[in-house]
């Protein structure tokens, strides 16, 4: 790991919250506009964040707070590792640990709403984890390495040969970003049968931590999407932004589905598409490891 990788990773750690917060702000603004409203200012997420920091401390158990810190720090670790061009498999394993920390935090409070939310959270992980892992495998089949650096060395856009895997990643993205139709464990919107799902029992600065983690997560996921067009990178960034916009549209044209729909869609469609894509690679594009 070179010094350059270190500095890029650290820079990402510092910048990601700003980018993520701003993107979330734009998200809320655009959503409002799609609903015919003016919507909040695009800095709204930062206002929310600092307001939450200033609230009185209140908690249900210490355990839940500890896990939330784990959620934040591990997500930060994944962001660092992605930008420092490390092994994608390991990054997604750590991301899974981070996601599990969120579930643990919700589990450690004996509140029905947060516990049902936590169960749904792990169901979400069951839905998106295979897609992410298989997408990494599909990338590997093209680049011959699991390292992010390999994608940059690969030189040509992955999107050409991995179109179906890309679509599958979009499904995982919808789940991970908690957008309709898959916002089942905790919704960005308030009106949900589980109140706020896994976040129900957090308040004040700990909610702010969760918000911060979401910003990191957003950056991580969009950076992963950008990898599908890593050379030149600016196209990848545009691609990621376009995907984010697409997610907003999807969020606004779909009702929330239930977990069994989510599972069957992500497994049947998502995993199926990637499998198809791998077969396509074998049949038409050629597997780099066999060449």
């Amino acid at each position, binding site marked *: 790991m070179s010094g350059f990788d270190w500095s890029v990773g650290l820079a990402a750690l510092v910048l990601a919250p700003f980018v993520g917060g701003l993107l979330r702000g734009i998200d809320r603004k655009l959503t409002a506009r799609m609903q015919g409203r003016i919507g909040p200012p695009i800095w709204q997420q930062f*206002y929310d964040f*600092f307001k939450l920091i*200033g609230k*009185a401390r209140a908690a249900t158990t210490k355990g839940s707070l500890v896990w939330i810190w784990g959620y934040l720090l591990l997500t930060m670790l994944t962001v660092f590792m992605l930008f420092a061009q490390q092994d994608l498999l390991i990054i997604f394993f750590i991301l899974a640990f981070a996601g599990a920390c969120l579930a643990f935090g919700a589990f450690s409070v004996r509140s029905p709403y947060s516990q049902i939310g936590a169960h749904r959270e792990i169901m979400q992980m069951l839905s998106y984890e295979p897609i992410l892992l298989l997408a990494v495998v599909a990338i590997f089949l093209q680049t011959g390495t699991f390292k992010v650096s390999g994608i940059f060395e690969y030189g040509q856009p992955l999107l050409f040969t991995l179109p179906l895997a890309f679509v599958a990643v979009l499904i995982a993205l919808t789940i991970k970003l908690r957008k309709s139709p898959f916002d089942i464990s905790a919704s960005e919107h*308030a*009106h949900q049968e589980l109140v*706020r799902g896994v976040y129900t029992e957090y308040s004040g600065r700990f909610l702010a931590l969760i918000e911060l983690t979401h910003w990191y997560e957003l950056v991580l996921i969009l950076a992963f999407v950008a990898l599908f067009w890593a050379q030149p990178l600016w196209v990848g960034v545009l691609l990621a932004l376009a995907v984010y916009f697409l997610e907003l549209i999807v969020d606004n044209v779909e009702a929330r589905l239930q977990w069994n729909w989510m599972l069957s869609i992500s497994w049947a469609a998502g995993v199926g598409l990637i499998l198809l894509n791998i077969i396509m690679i074998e049949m038409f594009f050629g597997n780099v490891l066999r060449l």
Partner: protein
Amino acid sequence: MGLVAKARVKSPWIVHYCCSSCNGCDIEILACLTPLYDVERFGVLNIGNPKHADLLVVTGPVNKRNVRVLENIYNQMPAPKLVMAVGACACTGGVFHNCYNILGGIDKVIPVNVYVPGCAARPEAIIDGVVLALDKLSKIK
């Protein structure tokens, strides 16, 4: 901390509780969130969970059963918090003043910071109330 104080005014999250209201004010509060009035311009989110909220919006008079719910929700909100009573009933009991199961306005149970008159309170009045509440928030140190 200046940043926090500034942010506080920009991001009041509300939790709405309907005591024994006739729904008239409730639907007007919801109407405030919808495109034509859109209080999210002021950063208002209807968050639905007292633990996340800064502003408790109450409609309707308190009755003998929901008095404990109201107290509980108020206690679960972390400081700094404000209470807004929307509609004649929430302020004083209104037209239900002589019903046997009614205790009266919600200020008999929890301290109220902003009273919004009207039956039902018009969305404009509610927005005025929110603005007034923000003004009060900015004075909290």
